[in-house]
Structures are given as C-alpha cells and as structure tokens.
C-alpha cells in the first residue's frame, strides 16, 4: 500500500478517534453529572393497589424532581423474598415489613439503617402521630415509619337496626342484650371468619383484652408491671370463649367462623345474614363496595366497653405495614428523600387513601376534618376524626400484631383455638402466654410501647 494513502487513512482515523474520544468523555461526564439516583422500593403485590401506587406515588414523586428515580417493584410473597435478599446483603433501598415484630428482627440483625438522623433533619417526629412514631423507635433510634395505620371497629347494618328498634351497644349488658335480640330475629350476631387467615382470632382477642381488662392494664402487662395470668385478662379470654363457643356470636358457630373467609363474611353482612361485623378499618373499601348496590346502609361504632363501670371507648392502635431503609442501601439519603416526600405531602396521602376508602395507605399524619375530601364516605370521615380525637385524649388500646413480640404474638391466636376446643383451660393458656412473655423479655425481644 502507498505510504501517502496510509498517512491519509491514519489522519482520517485519528480524527475519527478523536471525535469518538471527546464524545465518550462528554457522555460520561454528562451521565455522572445528570444521571438520576435510583431508589428501589419493594411492596407486596395487589391488583387493585399497584396501579394506584404507581400513578399517585411513584409517578408523582418522579415528576416532582430530577435527581431521584423511584422504582417500586411489586412482589408476590414479599416477606420471604425480602428476608432472603436482605440476608445476602441485597434487597431494595426501602424495605416494607408487615409490622414491628419483623422490624425488630431486622434491626437486631443489623440489616436496617437507623433513620434517626433523617428524622431530625426532616422533622418526621412532628409530622407523624406520636404513638405511631414511637412504635418505630428501637434502642432509642428511629428505624421504621408506618405506611398505614388501622384499628378495630364494630360495623352494623344501620337500616336493620332502625327497622328493629335496636340500639348500638356500648356496655356488656347492652352488648349481650342486643346479641340476644339479633339471634331471636334469626340472624347471626356478627359476620366474621378465619379461613385463609388464621390470625384473625387475634383481632377478637385484642378487642376483648382491651375492652374487658382496659387499655391501662394491657399497657401494664406490656411493660411488665402486670401478669397475663391476672384475673382481668383471664376474664377477658373467658368471656370471648363464652361468646364464641357457647353463644356462637360469630357466624352462628365456631365451626362456621372457622369455615368463612373474607368474601363469605362480607357477603353475609351485606345480605342481612348477620347484623354486625367486628373487623379492622381495612374493610372500609370492601364494605362500601358491598353496600353500593343495596338499599341498606351500614355504619360503625367503637367496640363496647365490656368491663364493669364502663368508660369512654378506646381505639386499638395498629400499624399495618412499616417502611425502613435497608442497611445495605447505597442510596440511603435518596431513600430518605422519598420517605420525606410521603410524610410531607398530605394531599397525596389523602388522595391515595381515599381511593381505598381509607382502608390502605393511611399514613398516620395529622389530618383535620377539612383535609378529607368529599368523595370519602361520611362513615369513614367520621372515623378519621373520632380516631384522632379519642387517641389524642389517650383513649387508645393495643393490638397484638403491633405490640406483641413474635412468639407470644403467634401464641395468642394459634393457641386460642385450643381454648375454644376445650382442650386447655383459660388459666393454663394465659399461664403459657405469660411464660412466653417472660422468655421474650429475657431475650430482649419486646417491641416499643410509647409511654402512656
């Protein structure tokens, strides 16, 4: 080949290489300068919920700024996948757990980052309801924020009550009297069932423990100043046993209660198969939908006070899901920015919660009556206001799935069946329960309970 041609080609090649080199440098520079930080967030998948989260949270956050790209991934069986990922130093930046007992295990294993600094920086303690904030404080530092809160209530068919002249019970005698009247009218007292979700029993156990023994006593037992074998607690469980087994309050019989699932008991309640339903506020969406095409109207009331002397009714505090930052997250600052976006945008929270009739994504922020939009049903609106007022006055109790450590937390519902089967006495059951609490206390497994 001619030498000149080689020089010419070489010259052309050099020029091309130079252009490629400059472009590469520019792209690298621009990428590192303008590339967004990605924050991943894993959530349990749900066909109804996922599109709302994507549109109203993820897209809204990504549109609100140019530095962070939030990616929410919806997973089936999140708990198991998450645990495996976390143990191998992987997983999302934002970690969701079903409740504080899980947070405790992750936190103790050093798998979560303390959010104490972010909380101080962004003022989260002032934005979240105090009890919900305290439930995320482990070893003096803030580790988990609530994604939704809930409480147990008593729903009733308002139309049916009015037709029969029944009044909503507020004391034990009224409660048993109303139940007798409902049964005499050929209906079940409550629609409820546990098939598909065996821990349903703990909803009832928590209501009876708080309502019969009183939240103050439950609090004392949680912090170790009372024993679960005390008569207030055995009395509560005995009363629940009587109402469940002897009187068949729930779906007519213990066997039916075991056999009915979510769709069954909602259908029973909406079709006048039962006059009332004891359930958590997560039902709001389903109950509103169930009564949408019928002429009956539903309403709710706090669960009656079952102890002598009565008192103001109280609402059980419960966290549905928690949010934390993964200990191995490479972008904890960006993850905290995402969480702060949630806690600082009441409008977005209210908008999303309204889509679920306040059965989901009710981040425990300070809501005022005016904040709640008109599309929310009046019953739900009343609940939000009442809950804030009552809990603000200290009228609150404790749910087992938010304040009980793992082992006693399972015992309370799993072994409840043994009591109902008559295989063990209430006293023996509570004795075993106390033993599990002693063991959990000794091992330092107790969950945070804010001072009462």
């Amino acid at each position, binding site marked *: 080949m001619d030498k000149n041609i080689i020089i010419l080609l070489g010259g052309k090649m050099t020029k091309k290489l130079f252009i490629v080199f400059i472009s590469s440098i520019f792209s690298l520079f621009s990428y590192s300068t303008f590339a967004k930080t990605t924050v991943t967030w894993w959530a349990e998948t749900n066909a109804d919920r996922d599109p709302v989260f994507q549109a109203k949270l993820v897209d809204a956050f990504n549109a609100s700024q140019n530095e962070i790209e939030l990616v929410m991934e919806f997973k089936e069986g999140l708990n198991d996948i998450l645990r495996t990922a976390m143990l191998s130093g992987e997983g999302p930046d934002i970690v969701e757990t079903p409740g504080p007992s899980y947070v405790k295990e992750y936190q103790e294993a050093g798998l979560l980052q303390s959010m104490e600094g972010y909380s101080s920086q962004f003022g989260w303690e002032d934005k979240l309801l105090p009890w919900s904030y305290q439930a995320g404080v482990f070893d003096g530092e803030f580790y988990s924020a609530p994604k939704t809160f809930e409480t147990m209530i008593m729903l009733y068919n308002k139309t049916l009550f009015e037709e029969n002249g029944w009044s909503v019970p507020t004391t034990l005698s009224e409660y048993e009297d109303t139940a007798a009247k409902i049964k005499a009218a050929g209906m079940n007292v409550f629609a409820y069932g546990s098939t598909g979700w065996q821990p349903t029993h703990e909803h009832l156990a928590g209501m009876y423990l708080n309502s019969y023994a009183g939240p103050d006593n439950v609090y004392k037992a949680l912090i170790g100043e009372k024993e679960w074998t005390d008569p207030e607690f055995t009395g509560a469980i005995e009363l629940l046993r009587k109402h469940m087994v002897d009187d068949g309050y729930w779906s007519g019989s213990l*066997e039916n209660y075991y056999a009915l699932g979510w769709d069954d008991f909602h259908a029973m309640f909406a079709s006048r198969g039962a006059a009332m339903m004891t359930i958590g506020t997560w039902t709001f969406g389903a109950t509103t939908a169930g009564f949408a095409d019928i002429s009956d109207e539903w309403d709710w009331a706090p669960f009656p006070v079952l102890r002598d002397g009565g008192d103001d009714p109280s609402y059980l505090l419960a966290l549905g899901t928690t949010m934390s930052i993964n200990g191995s997250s490479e972008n904890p600052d960006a993850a905290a920015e995402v969480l702060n976006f949630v806690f600082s945008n009441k409008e977005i929270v209210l908008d999303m919660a309204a889509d679920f009739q306040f059965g989901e994504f009710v981040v425990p922020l300070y809501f005022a009556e005016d904040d709640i939009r008109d599309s929310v049903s009046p019953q739900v609106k009343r609940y939000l206001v009442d809950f804030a007022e009552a809990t603000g006055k200290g009228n609150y109790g404790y749910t087992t799935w938010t304040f009980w450590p793992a082992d006693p937390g399972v015992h309370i519902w799993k072994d409840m069946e043994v009591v109902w089967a008559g295989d063990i006495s209430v006293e023996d059951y509570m004795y075993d329960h106390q033993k599990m609490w002693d063991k959990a206390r000794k091992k330092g497994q107790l969950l945070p309970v804010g001072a009462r």
Partner: protein
Amino acid sequence: MSVFFSKNSIAWYFIIPVLAIHFMVVALPSLLSLALCLTDWNGFGKINYVGLENFYELFDDRYFKKAVWHNIIWTFLFLTVPIALALTCAYLLTGITKGQMLFRLCFFFPYMLASIISCQIWKFIFHPLYGLPAWLNSKGIDFIPAVSPFTVKETSLYAVAFVDGWHFWGFLVVIYITGMYQVDNSLYEAADIEGATKFQKFRFVTLPLIRPIFIFSIMIIIIWSIPTFDYVWILTQGGPAYSSEVLATNLYSQAFDRFNVGYSSAIGTLMFIYTIFIVSIFGVLRKLGWEI
C-alpha cells in the same frame, strides 16, 4: 489417560452436572440445616450455639408430640385406604377391555390437579353456607349436617387425609395396573384350569408377582407421609386447635411465624433421621434378598 475416557468415567461426566446442582440445592442446605438445629438462630441475625437444647424443648412440646402422632395416623391411613382401593380397582380394571382407558383417566385425573385446586373444590363442596350439605338441607334432606369437616377438631385430620387420598389413589391404580400387565397370562390360565376363584387368582398369582411394585408403593407412601404439607396447610393450616397439625406445618410455623429457625431445624433433623431409617430398612431387606 484411558481411565478418564473409559465407559464408566463417561457416565460420571454426565452425572456430575446433576450432582453439582443437587449438592448446591439439596445437600448443602440440608447439611446447614442439620447444623442449625444446634443453634437458636431466628432466621435474621446472630447464631448462638445452644447444644441439644432445641431437642430437649421439642420432646417437651405437646404440639410437636401431637404432630408426630398425626403423622403416624396419616401414614397408617395412606398405607391402608388408598392401597386397598387402588389394588381392588386396578385388578378389576384388568378384566375390563372396553372403556378401560376412560376409567384409568378418571381415576388418575385428580392426581394431575394442582393441590390448591383440589383443596378449593372440596372446601367449596363442604362450605357450610353454599356447599352440598347446605343445599341438601335447604331441600329438606338433613341427614348430613351443613358443617365443614375441615373445621371440626374430631374430623379435620381425616377430612384432609381424604382429600389428599382422593388426589393420590389414582396414581397407585396406574402403577399397580402397569405391574399387573407384566404378569404372564399363562399363570392365570393355569389357575383357571386348577379352578381358582377370582380372589384366589389375585391372592396367589397377582399379588406375589407385583410384589416389587407393591413394596415400592409402601415405601414411597411412608416416605412421602413425613413431609406432607400442602393439603394440610391449604385446608386447615394445622387447625382447628392443632387437630390436623403435622410435622411439616409445625416446622413451618416455628420457622416463619415464630422466627424459631433453630428449633424448626431440630424438627427437620428428626424428620430426616426418620426418613433415613425407613430407607435403610428397605435397603437391608433388599440385601437380605427380598424382591423390592
């Protein structure tokens, strides 16, 4: 060099990838699980050695003992009812020439269904409000109470075993019938000449000649009965009141509800030892010359 390319070596080359995967997926986790039974690991954090404490606790645990007893009942049920039914049906089917495939398909069909589907079918059949007994009751036929047997502590274990057995027995029919077709027809002809009844032919010709398959079925039933989980979990989750709790549901609950992974590994270890024991018995019998 020739050793590496001998016929025997080449077979090993084909097996090695499978062995490697098996080691990673089964053997290694099993060994780790065996080690975990001596710890108090909760599945998340620090692992502390606790010696045999988990086993002491286990032998004192009334629900573990209950689960062991339920596994024994389960094994006994599966060693009797489905085997008796399958043997009878398989033997009767060998005498049918027209439509035999249809029967075989019908019996085998439940085996092809996913456990979740089989369970939902039976759950719905016995649903206290919308199930078959409830419908019959509404028509005035009330000799079957409208109560789901899965929710009554006296019947729950048997009800779950029934559903699992319903799905499983067709599989036994197919393997027995395959064995019965291997029996030389001349033996039946000889028996006919001797004037043997149908039962005598079954007892003295069929049964001895399908013995390897029969013993194999017994062995797999005993082994499969130990980790039985899916039907129990879907239908009752071990309830009510632990009345259908078996070892696998007990293990699962300890590991994933209560975060007692060390304790549940101890349960797993005992299940493993038991399975090895059963397999060893069959191994010894084979060494003693039994045709199994």
